[in-house]
């Protein structure tokens, strides 16, 4: 069976979602993953969008976080201040999805700047919602291609917190969310160990530890029980290709 890296990451991300999860969804692959999960094993998944949309039922693939298709037919709309207070800060969000230009050994994320903040070599978009999502969602998932430049040992800038320097550093800050629980890449899945360090927990079919290590900027450990992810099911691919992204914009 043939599938793209995006399809592989989307399907593996969908598997991490549980029925009745309240998910803070981003556009692109997270949106596809949530819609896929809802059509398969998590029919009661509740999708919340940063723009203030609750229980969206997009009739078409949303092309931006504020696409009007998210609103028509949604259960509720609220203001931006409300989505960050009543929903996120209050602890009503189970899952947040994050991406990042850099993700480091302890799951910290940089989407702000490459180089010095005040004299940026590359100026990135900045936090948007990610600083608070990473802090306050019960669980966070990161979807990103596995490339060496994306996985440095340390991020240039802490836009959002993973496990900081590891150990109990995150817990000591009193932040409510449990932090990044998985990083889904095109090679496998990284998960934090007891010390908060991202270790390789699963490989996708046909991928090797050596590939993962070659694309990771620190000495990558393996989880005690290394798994191989099941290959994407035909039905999952059909839903992605025929129903969710027929124009193949993201997959």
């Amino acid at each position, binding site marked *: 069976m043939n599938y793209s890296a995006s399809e592989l990451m989307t399907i593996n991300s969908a598997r991490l979602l549980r029925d009745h999860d309240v998910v803070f969804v981003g556009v692109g692959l997270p949106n596809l993953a949530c819609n896929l999960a809802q059509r398969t094993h998590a029919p009661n998944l509740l999708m919340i969008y940063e723009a203030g949309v609750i229980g969206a039922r997009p009739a078409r693939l949303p092309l931006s976080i504020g696409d009007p298709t998210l609103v028509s037919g949604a259960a509720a709309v609220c203001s931006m201040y409300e989505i960050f207070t009543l929903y996120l800060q209050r602890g009503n969000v189970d899952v947040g999805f994050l991406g990042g230009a850099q993700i480091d050994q302890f799951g910290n994320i940089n989407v702000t700047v490459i180089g010095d903040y005040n004299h940026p070599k590359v*100026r990135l978009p*900045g936090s948007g919602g990610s*600083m608070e999502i990473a802090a*306050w969602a019960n669980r966070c998932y990161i979807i990103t291609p596995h490339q060496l430049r994306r996985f440095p040992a340390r991020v240039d800038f*802490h836009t959002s917190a993973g496990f900081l320097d590891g150990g109990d550093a995150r817990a000591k800050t009193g932040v*409510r969310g449990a932090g990044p629980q998985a990083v889904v890449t095109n090679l496998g899945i990284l998960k934090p160990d007891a010390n908060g360090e991202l270790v390789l927990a699963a490989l996708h079919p046909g991928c090797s530890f050596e590939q993962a290590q070659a694309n990771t900027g620190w000495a990558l450990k393996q989880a005690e029980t290394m798994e191989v992810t099941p290959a994407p099911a035909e039905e999952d691919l059909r839903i992605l290709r025929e129903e969710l992204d027929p124009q193949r914009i993201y997959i």
Partner: protein
Amino acid sequence: MTKLTTLSEAIRQYVHDGDCVFAAGFTHLIPFAAGHEIIRQGRKNLVLARATPDLIYDQMVAAGCARKIIFSYIGNPGVGSLRIVRQEIEAGRLEWEEYSHFSMISRLQAGAAGLPFIPMNQTAATDLEKANPQYKRVVDPYSGREVIVVPPLNPDVAIVHVQRCDASGNAQIWGIIGEQKEAAFAARHVILTAEEIVDEEVIRSDPNRTVIPGFIVDAVCHVPYCAHPSYTQGYYDRDNPFYLAWDKISETPEAVKAYLDEWVYGVKDREEYWQKLGEETRKRLEVAPRISSPVNYGQY
């Protein structure tokens, strides 16, 4: 009391060189026509505040209107980089002041609520706090733990696009409401642009839908299609091909200049712009109706 005026007159009266301008709208209802009018009137040294600068501020920065930008996410939404703002920041030619979305909107909320600061829980990510001295900490007197606080943002002028309002400026919005209300209450002056000016009885038939009361509004401008290439829920769709096209245009100063010459300086107002877009584009952005179920307020 009618506050109806033209957009051109409203910008002339309420947007001055050096002002802090908040052109509101989180992904929705972005008042592009007002941005273009500010460019045409040649304003300089503006401080441009918005959670997501979007193409509207990219164009205003390109046209030389801005000295500084206050933001929480600079991207071309759904497309990629916001090239001009990014390049001006990288080149050290544009000052910037940066927040997360939540702290940005908290600043507006404090400004709207008349509070000297507003608290947020800690996020454990402290680099932005270190980079921006506007962030401070306060000790929660109940737990002894620290919270993060930001000061109010009170723009000189907020420009808010709405679906409908009456001539006094009582305005109703639906779809994504973002920070429209907070921006209006936080600002010293408020310019409304509206898809439709309706009889006040339409507004008063549904007072819970009113987001901005007329008495805080300075100018009411009837500007259909004001938000293109962003959108107005129920009125027209987002022009996604233009968002993609801007990614190319903004690659070179020549293409940007040609764009501004043709689509901003080269047109008188939004109506001319909208006609110039052509029948095909206008047709493509049309949306079929989907009407809300009414509610009964009762005669009391």
